[in-house]
């Protein structure tokens, strides 16, 4: 009814806004033109070899034709990039809503209920609900403020910490030159990385775990460094024969690639092994809100 119509209007406006934002990015034109010119030249050469006289005429015609095609091709390329980005964003949403996080949380709640720990169960459910709510709200936006992203990350880390009976601690440090309330980031990039560290690095470990998150900026790039002191990638326990890279990590990698492609930035996603544990570096375009 009323609610529905206004919702639709909001959605349309958002779509329009997103659409405009992408189309206004004109920098990609030059790059694609180069690529196209390269593939075009040999074919002209080929034509000249076969029919010398008609080559000049046909060549000119093809050139004009290709130029038109090039423009069409460009808008197609932007369009398809945008589509890919949107679908990856959708995937991260489903990745967060379905796998181990939800079921492990439900399992913990079940455990509290079975042990008749009413207060703990209720507290856990409320934290879990808050995380789900914020995750959904953030995922609806393409970019959010770094402070909001960190806020959710802390809630997630605190909940995992409760579940692991405080087996690990975490530190989040931000370079002083970065204003968390004026820096735009894609939502939830760090969450699957941290989840991976906890589940595959820290849980199988006997001693206390530590996750260190450092956020810095370098050459127009925002860099997330996430380190754990867990068991690392090369010493999997018997149960952990599979690679440490989860579906969530793969989706995050894909998102970073697409984001950097759209902003024409040479950012990368790196996983390296430390003497103890694993270090993950994710590089994103550095973008200020104002």
């Amino acid at each position, binding site marked *: 009814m*009323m*609610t529905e119509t206004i919702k639709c209007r*909001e959605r349309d406006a958002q779509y329009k806004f997103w659409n405009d*934002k992408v189309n*206004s990015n004109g920098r990609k034109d030059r790059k694609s033109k180069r690529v196209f010119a390269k593939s075009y030249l040999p074919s002209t050469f080929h034509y000249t070899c076969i029919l010398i006289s008609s080559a000049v005429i046909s060549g000119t015609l093809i050139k004009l034709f290709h130029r038109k095609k090039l423009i069409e091709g460009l808008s197609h390329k932007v369009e398809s990039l945008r589509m890919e980005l949107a679908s990856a964003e959708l995937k991260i949403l489903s990745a967060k809503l379905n796998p181990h996080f939800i079921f492990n949380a439900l399992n913990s709640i079940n455990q509290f209920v079975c042990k008749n720990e009413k207060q703990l169960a*209720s507290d856990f459910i409320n934290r879990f609900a808050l995380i789900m*709510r914020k995750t959904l709200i953030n995922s609806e936006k393409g970019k959010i403020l770094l402070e909001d992203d960190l806020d959710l990350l802390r809630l997630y880390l605190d909940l995992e910490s409760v579940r692991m009976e405080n087996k690990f601690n975490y530190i989040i440090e931000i370079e002083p030159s970065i204003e968390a309330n004026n820096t735009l980031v894609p939502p939830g990039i760090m969450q699957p990385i941290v989840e991976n560290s906890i589940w595959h690095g820290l849980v199988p470990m006997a001693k206390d775990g530590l996750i260190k998150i450092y956020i810095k900026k370098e050459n127009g790039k925002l860099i997330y460094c996430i380190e754990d002191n867990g068991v690392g990638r090369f010493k999997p326990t018997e149960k952990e024969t599979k690679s440490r890279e989860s579906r969530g990590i793969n989706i995050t990698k894909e998102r970073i690639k697409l984001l950097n492609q759209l902003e024409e930035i040479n950012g990368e996603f790196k996983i390296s092994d430390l003497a103890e544990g694993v270090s993950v570096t994710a590089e994103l375009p550095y973008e200020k*809100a*104002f």
Partner: protein
Amino acid sequence: MDTTLIVDDEKHCIYNMLDLISQCSFEFDFIITAQSVEEAVYKTKEFKPDLIFLDIHLGNQTGFDFLSKIKKRDFELIFITAYDQYAIKAFKFSALDYLLKPINPEDFKRALREYKNKESRKYLKNKMNVLLNNLKNDISKRKIAISSQEGLEFLDLNKIVRLEADGNYTHIFMKKGTKITASKNLKFFEEMLSDSNFFRVHHSHMINLALVKKYYRGKGGYLVMDDDTSVNVSIRKKEGLLKYLSEQY
């Protein structure tokens, strides 16, 4: 505590409310429940409750439908919703209290304390009128409840020229030249108003797009508003602003 009505279409949610009520220190004298809009309307007329817990989702109707069917709204109201962002926005615009499902016992207690507070009951009728007005009118006729030091004020959106950040406070400049200082930061208003024809042009400024007089080009440029004040535009916001302005005129 007086007469309380719980309206929710799901029985187990009503049980959950009764459970929360039994756990808190307030005494409830008389509790009635309703599972549909019709039942809620009937019981409201019959029992004249002092407090209503109203779920937004009621079968194929809403808590708003219930509210618009009641002429004499002299009860305190606490909305409940699971995840309805549109409804939450509507509550924020009218400063009406709401609880989110699953209901956190702490939030529940806070809402009841608020109910006991006479000061907040003073504006109740206005709040409900603003809510219903906003639901049936388009953006230009909407109102917003602002809590300032003087109390709660209800402002017409189309009479707000601009908003300016001041730490955790926001100054709201009205068409007639008055200024209201709200005890919320600009980020709060940005989230509320960005789809109501307002645009945040700068870290410290948000403007009403309908009340822009002129834009002067520059690095970011600046705007002259309806009240002849000028507002700087951040470089990163220039493009977006021009797009909105060109759509408008």
